[in-house]
């Protein structure tokens, strides 16, 4: 384990930012801390970096088996990249990158030629060889981000920590830089944690995703695991689009059934209403992009909205238009009880659909 954080609690006055959180990050992995704002993800990252400290008496942080709980940030050997880059505005790009080496005590400081060589090497790595003499204000957002990364890497950090690394970039640059970072991290193999509130970013980039909510870790797993086997209603709602229905009773064995989720791609639309296995809906809006057709539907009985995602071919076959009537069936349903431990159930539609349509029999 490269980074181990144990039982971290952090409060700001009456507000709890982290409640007894523990986390282990294997060496060389790229890990995402994913959660909405206020979930404690940035606080956890800053505590790992040593920019903040956990409440006294709580918690312990190890880097590569070494206790760094009370070590100040500068001695932990972390590379930290700030959300808004925090480049030194009065220094050139080259001076920015060299900073970490030039502030070392005289005895440990490399010779000037060595620092220059290192800066040159890093500029090449971030593909900005020509721009060493520029000031941060003269760079684009993506370029600044890469300079911030090079500056953090110049001191050969044991771990790399990125706070919302793509948050301030526009969509196109973000995508490009995301791909670049992934290659880059693989290449240099440094253990990396990044914070994000963008689930797509976390799922696409990370080896492991840590989903956080309300000062706690909700789930930890590979992107596939957290998407396919969400551990809580929060996780299923936060990762990807999902239809949410309030269930009305307990018709399913073992389920305390209070909340019911259906992913849009698990909704199948049919032209005709097939009696008790379907739900009557009206088509609100149809839009297709790429391989998928997105259809917004409204239940005719209680006006709940249902989002469906079907293949383009299927959409063409159905020939749906806004305002038309249709019916839907669900291929997979997940049920979470409101209280107590959740039980996950994939259910075929034939079991659940009637209970949805008829409150009398009801979920």
């Amino acid at each position, binding site marked *: 384990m490269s980074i181990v954080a144990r039982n971290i609690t952090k409060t700001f006055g009456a507000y709890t930012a982290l409640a007894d959180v523990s986390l282990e990050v294997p060496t060389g992995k790229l890990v995402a801390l994913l959660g909405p704002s206020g979930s404690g993800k940035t606080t956890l990252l800053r505590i790992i970096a040593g920019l903040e400290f956990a409440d006294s008496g709580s918690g312990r942080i190890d880097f590569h088996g070494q206790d760094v709980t009370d070590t100040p*940030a*500068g*001695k932990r050997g972390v*590379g930290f990249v700030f959300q808004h880059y*925090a480049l*030194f505005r009065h220094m050139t790009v080259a001076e920015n990158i060299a900073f970490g080496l030039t*502030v070392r005590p005289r005895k440990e400081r490399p010779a000037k030629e060595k620092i220059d060589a290192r800066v040159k090497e890093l500029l090449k790595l971030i593909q900005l060889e020509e721009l060493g003499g520029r000031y941060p*204000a003269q760079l684009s957002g993506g370029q600044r981000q890469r300079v911030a990364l090079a500056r*953090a890497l110049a001191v050969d950090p044991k771990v790399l920590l990125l706070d919302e690394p793509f948050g301030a970039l526009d969509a196109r640059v973000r995508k490009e830089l995301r791909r670049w970072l992934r290659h880059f991290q693989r290449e240099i193999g440094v253990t990396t944690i990044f914070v994000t509130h963008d689930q797509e970013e976390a799922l696409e980039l990370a080896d492991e995703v840590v989903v956080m909510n309300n000062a706690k870790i909700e789930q930890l797993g590979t992107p596939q695991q957290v998407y396919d086997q969400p551990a809580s209603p929060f996780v299923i709602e936060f990762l990807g689009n999902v239809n949410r229905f309030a269930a009305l009773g307990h018709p399913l064995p073992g389920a305390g059934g209070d909340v019911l989720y259906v992913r849009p791609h698990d909704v199948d639309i049919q032209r005709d209403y097939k009696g008790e296995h379907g739900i009557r809906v009206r088509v609100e809006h149809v839009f297709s992009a790429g391989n998928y057709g997105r259809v917004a539907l409204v239940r005719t009985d209680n006006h709940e909205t249902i989002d469906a995602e079907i293949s383009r071919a299927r959409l063409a076959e159905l020939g749906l238009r806004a305002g038309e009537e249709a019916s839907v069936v669900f291929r997979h349903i997940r049920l979470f009880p409101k209280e107590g431990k959740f039980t996950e159930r994939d259910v075929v539609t034939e079991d659940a659909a009637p209970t949805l349509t008829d409150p009398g029999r009801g979920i």
Partner: protein
Amino acid sequence: MAAIVSRLERRSSAPRANADSPLLKWSLLAVASAFLVFFLVLPLAAVFAEAFRRGVEAYFEAFKDPDTAASIRLTLIVAASVVPLNLLFGVAAAWAIAKYEFKGKALLTTFIDLPFAVSPVIAGLVYVLIFSAHGWIPPETQQFLLKPFAVLFGWLAAMPAFGWLDPLAYWFEEPKIIFHTTGIVLATIFVTFPFVARELIPLMQAQGNDEEYAAVTLGASGWQTFRRVTLPNVKWGLFYGVILCNARAMGEFGAVAVVSGKIRGETTTMPLHIEILYNEYLFVAAFAVASLLALLALVTLVLKSVIEWAHSRRHA
């Protein structure tokens, strides 16, 4: 054709609400200019006109008076003592307020503004109350606390008259605060301490702490972070604050008048000396010294403009 032209004209003037009233614009401009001429340009011109009324020779003759020379020297000593101290205080206060969270922050910020709100005369009176021979602080404690300063100022003030005398001689003299350079410096510190801090606080707050945090994670010590990251980022604001502080330190009248006792040739700074000369009907001499102060104000303004220009050019 005519219709099209008139429509184009209307469109070009329509989006700016205030553009359709040139009368308003020019009358506002006229009022502002008239104000400036009557209240600033005219008096300034008068100062120089009066100073040179008897010719250039009479003008320079005024500075040969030993009391006048002493007042200029004293003003320079006061400014040279006050500005570095307030620079230190201003940076420390701004750093604390902008970079840390603590209880009583709002109170501290308010206190920094206090000298702007309080009449300088009151400040002077308070210092008299505290530091005079029968003041709140017993003379023995005053001596202990302020002896080094008193020695330094005494030595500086006497230096041109007696040459480089042994500063130790002043150690055995009883240090004085009120009616002495030390008192003038204290009062001037009070009056000028908001300038540097006021200039730095908004600047530092706007810049946030991220660059400092970045420096810290890269292994920089507190001092390295300050010298290589914080200071360069605020240097223009700092210059500006120092210039304003210096201008006020040299020009302060009220607070200094109370604590100095106006001992001619000993505790009269330039503004005090100007008043004395004026009251003795020595108009040329009074305005000659006044012109020197006015010149200082002009130099300050030019420096300020140069700094602002350099600053805006760097960030263009």
